[in-house]
């Protein structure tokens, strides 16, 4: 699948699902930028969706720069950053109104609390929560607690009619992680290098 088709494929799939769904989005590491474009630009921006972007992979500053480089409108993106504190680089994050910091990716309850807080603040009719990524959360948490976290988080978001997209990187995934995500998701999107 070409890069452009990856983004379109992701956006088309998301447009088909009901708002309270949980989506497993499994991608090749090479497709990361196109997945961002598909989810945030071609899907969310077009529908005036407020996005709560939980990042445990790279800091919000880095991911925001990537988004801006891709010409993605970040005005409706609110970050829950689980990594800046850990990297001891939280000071500038505190100043940005679009970011809420969680001290560590091990504080999964706080990830839920910050997500809930941002959902309450959002006045948009449609909301999307993106977890980037389950693999980086798995570096810091065991499968038991991660599985419990996903179950509670997704159930709560479903009840609030919020769409959840859980990103996982194919190259870094394990059967346990795949099972855990599949258990809470009702739809899967893959960005295989092959056609499909």
């Amino acid at each position, binding site marked *: 699948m070409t890069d452009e088709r990856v983004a379109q494929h992701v956006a088309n799939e998301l447009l088909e699902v009901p708002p309270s769904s949980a989506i497993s989005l499994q991608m090749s590491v090479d497709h990361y930028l196109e997945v961002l474009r598909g989810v945030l630009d071609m899907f969310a921006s077009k529908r005036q969706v407020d996005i709560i972007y939980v990042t445990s992979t790279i800091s919000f500053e880095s991911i925001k720069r990537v988004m801006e480089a891709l010409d993605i409108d970040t005005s409706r993106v609110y970050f829950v950053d689980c990594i800046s504190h850990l990297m001891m680089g939280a000071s500038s994050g505190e100043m940005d109104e679009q970011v809420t910091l969680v001290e560590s990716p091990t504080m*999964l*309850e*706080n990830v839920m609390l910050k997500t809930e807080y941002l959902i309450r*603040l959002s006045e948009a009719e449609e909301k999307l929560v993106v977890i980037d990524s389950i693999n980086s959360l798995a570096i810091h948490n065991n499968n038991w*607690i991660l599985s*419990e976290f996903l179950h*509670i988080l997704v159930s709560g978001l479903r009840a609030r009619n919020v769409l959840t997209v859980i990103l996982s990187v194919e190259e870094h995934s394990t059967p346990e992680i795949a099972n855990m995500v599949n258990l809470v998701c009702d739809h899967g999107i893959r960005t295989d290098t092959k056609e499909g």
Partner: protein
Amino acid sequence: MAQTSAERGRCVTGVEGLDTVLYGGIPRSNTVLLTGSCGTGKTSLALEFLIHGAAKGENSLFLSVTEDAEKMLANIIPYNFFDDDFVKSGKLVFIDLPVMYERLGMTKAELTMEEIDLLVTAIVSLAKELDTKRLVIDSITSVCYKLKTSEKIRDFILKLSKSLSALDCTSILVSEVSTQSSTYSTFGVEEAISDGIVLMANMERRGDLLRTLQVIKMRGTMHSRAKYVLDLTPEGVLLVPLLKGGSTRA
């Protein structure tokens, strides 16, 4: 048919998670001990309880022992749902208890039984005069330090809670305990007399410090006894369940 405990009127705290834990709120006119060590969010939760009350039109009274009203107000402002009019209109009233002691001539370190009666009468008269439906004393521990003995503490809390209950007033008594405490109150008496105990704590897990809340007892209602993690936000106190995987595999 007689009213069962399940049908008893509720004082909806307005803290969404807590109301869920309590199956709808604190049974009306209960006296609840809100206990925990420092930095666990007791005062914030108690203030939110009063602000939501004022927003619903219920007169709310904060009796402060340790902090003056002005400082208290400065702490309220970050709440998105706080309105200055609550204070201006008298729906939300702050009183410094040390000022009350002074006016009642209670200058000694320890109160006598007569002075205890006088203090209860003064608080209840104030609550009656203001038609108070929600009352917070922050903290009851500081008041207890002036009572000294278990008998006096028991007498004070029993009389106060009975009189406030008669006014249909739901009360929260904030209690301070040390981090290592195995009891829910400093003097061990407060917890036995209260209708409910809400325990707030700091829980360390693999180096992370989480604020937790647990309802230990609440007369007049079913309730969850599970531990919840909380966050203090401008939208108020938010709660989520404590993840068990973490607590069993430290």
